[in-house]
């Protein structure tokens, strides 16, 4: 049998340190808010060959003519994105033409352009936060009814843990936060709750049957019994999402990487966070 609850402090320390570092970086460095959230323009250019720093510098000079605060960044192997706040719809074709002429690019049109007004981002953010909160509250109610309130709270804490870890990935790697960020967070949310419930269901079943002598064994035993399932499900999920990360286009890669980490975190938290929280809490209550 695994000894999970005995080492609760270790698991909490690991998670807390990752989350605290992530949050500190969030506070100092901030999220790399993409234009979906803060508004602005992005132009993605497909270069014919991998651009070196000299090429990026040249592109920077060109884009600075349109927007002095614009940022130029290499994405994937042969793409370059230009982000700015002051580039207008009319300027995009001119900007692209200058780059195309300079480097003799084959593509007649930019690979991708996007301009978003600042009001849209605010709406998207408010709506995503609001609807997720309602979803979490309803899940808490359902778990409290089917299991008990303490299971619900433990599951929600594990959820918050996974969301924070996923956000930390965005902060560490400075991945642009766009509307796909919302989808990534929601996927992690769905996966994490699913995983946690399976472990809790086993605890509930074993506790009804009275298989184990005490609560410590009950939790450790239930985790051990569901461990193979937890690992196999996370593996099959990772197979498809990693394939996407390896082969997908750059916008898919940006989406897949935080998901990979979030899903691993979802599995981790169902074992090492949610169940120990429930254990510690119930032990205190009865002690």
């Amino acid at each position: 049998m695994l000894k999970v609850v005995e080492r609760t402090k270790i698991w909490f320390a690991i998670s807390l340190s990752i989350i605290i570092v992530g949050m500190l970086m969030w506070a100092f460095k901030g999220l790399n808010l993409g234009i979906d959230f803060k508004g602005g323009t992005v132009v993605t250019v497909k270069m014919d060959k991998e651009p070196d720093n000299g090429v990026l510098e040249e592109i920077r000079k060109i884009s600075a003519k349109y927007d002095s605060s614009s940022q130029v960044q290499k994405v994937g192997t042969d793409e370059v994105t230009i982000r700015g706040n002051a580039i207008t719809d009319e300027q995009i074709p001119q900007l692209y033409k200058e780059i195309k002429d300079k480097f003799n690019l084959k593509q007649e049109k930019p690979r991708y352009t996007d301009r978003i007004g600042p009001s849209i981002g605010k709406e998207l953010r408010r709506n995503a936060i609001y609807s997720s909160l309602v979803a979490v509250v309803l899940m808490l109610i359902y778990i409290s009814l089917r299991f008990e309130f303490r299971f619900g709270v433990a599951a929600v804490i594990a959820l918050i843990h996974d969301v924070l870890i996923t956000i930390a990935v965005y902060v560490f790697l400075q991945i642009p936060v766009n509307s796909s960020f919302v989808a990534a967070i929601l996927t992690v949310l769905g996966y994490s709750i699913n995983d946690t419930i399976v472990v809790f269901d086993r605890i509930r079943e074993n506790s009804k049957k009275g298989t184990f002598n005490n609560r410590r064994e009950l939790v450790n035993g239930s985790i051990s019994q569901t461990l193979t399932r937890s690992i196999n499900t996370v593996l099959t999920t990772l197979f498809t999402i990693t394939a996407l990360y390896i082969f997908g286009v750059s916008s898919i890669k940006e989406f897949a990487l935080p998901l990979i980490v979030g899903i691993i975190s979802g599995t981790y938290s169902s074992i090492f966070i949610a169940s120990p929280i429930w254990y510690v809490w119930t032990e205190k209550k009865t002690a």
Partner: protein
Amino acid sequence: MQVKTKSRLKFLISSVLIVLFAYILSSGLIVGDYKISSIGEITKLGLDLKGGVYIEEEIKGDNVSKETIERTKQLIELRVNALGVNESVVTVTQQNRIRIEIPGVYDAENALKQIGKTGKLTFRGPNNDIVITGEDIKDATVGVNQQTNQPVVQLKLNEAGTKKFAEATQKYLNQVISIYMDEERVSAPVVKSVITTGEAIIEGSKDIEEAKRLAGIIKSGALPVELVPATVKTIGPSLGADAIPTSKKAAVIGIALVMLFMAIYYRVPGIIADLALAVYIMLTMLIFTTVLKATLTLPGIAGLLLSIGMAVDANVLIFERIKEELKLGKSLRTAVDAGFNRALPSILDSNITTIIAGLVLMWLGAGQVKGFALTLVTGVVCSMFTAITVTKFLLKNFVNSNWIDNKKMYGA
């Protein structure tokens, strides 16, 4: 017939059917004059896979009525169609924005100009004096001149227009009356006769397409509101061209890995889970394309692939339970039955919790969040359904067929 033979037949027939359906759906089938399209052919591709222009126009001003918005939408539709693209989509969003998707067009600037015209239509005489305006026109249609076989635009004027136009055609007989959309001259026909009936034809269009465009412009008239483009995206032709094959590759490799893993780890039940997974993939794809009529987008592909990885979860839960029962020394049949029954509560509870979250997001979420939630809920429901029905049916019949009795092949 013996139970054994019956079960063997049931298993074989259903497996062959699954493989056959999978083949037909993936590559289509032609039987005589009948053609069954493959799932790839009937899937509508989103703008991010096809390439094109995406615009969201914000309506200026407060308290704009639903009717005005609807009218604006229709007018924009006419203007977008005047760009000469099929399959453009114009919709009103929840926030009362007008969303315009134009596949195959990469010139956002031009599209914006076309859509954003205030759209004041004027007919002007040689001295640039306004003869009639868009308000005087009842209808504009496309026809063919019987004598020359050339396409023409037929105009129908209202009463006031008829009167004004009769005077003007008399005044400018054999001169040019130009048609202006705002300050752009779209056509400059010569007045060949005095028109008093309120019905005129404009000749000089090169082909039917051009005549249709002109009629569209004349009919679309002025927009009742002022529009401000809030979002403008162009997805270049190269992005879609890259996105589809790379996603396909990822899908094939990802699904193959999942299936291989299940077969190697769980042996007999694993192979049956692979058949059930095939049913799951077909079921979700069919629901998406035919029931929900959803368009496949890049995030949609990611969601679908993710759901495939997660769909085997219910099977994993069941097989782990069967393994446990076998280890307790139960017979194969009892273990399979018990495995399903024992796994059911956790399958239900874990999935219902996810479905609750999905339904809330469908109900409250906007735009992409809603679409995402729909994918999630459909995926979860389908995976539960296939695990509880398809896997169960196949596995029970396989066990009853007595082909393989060795418990080791079932994970014990």
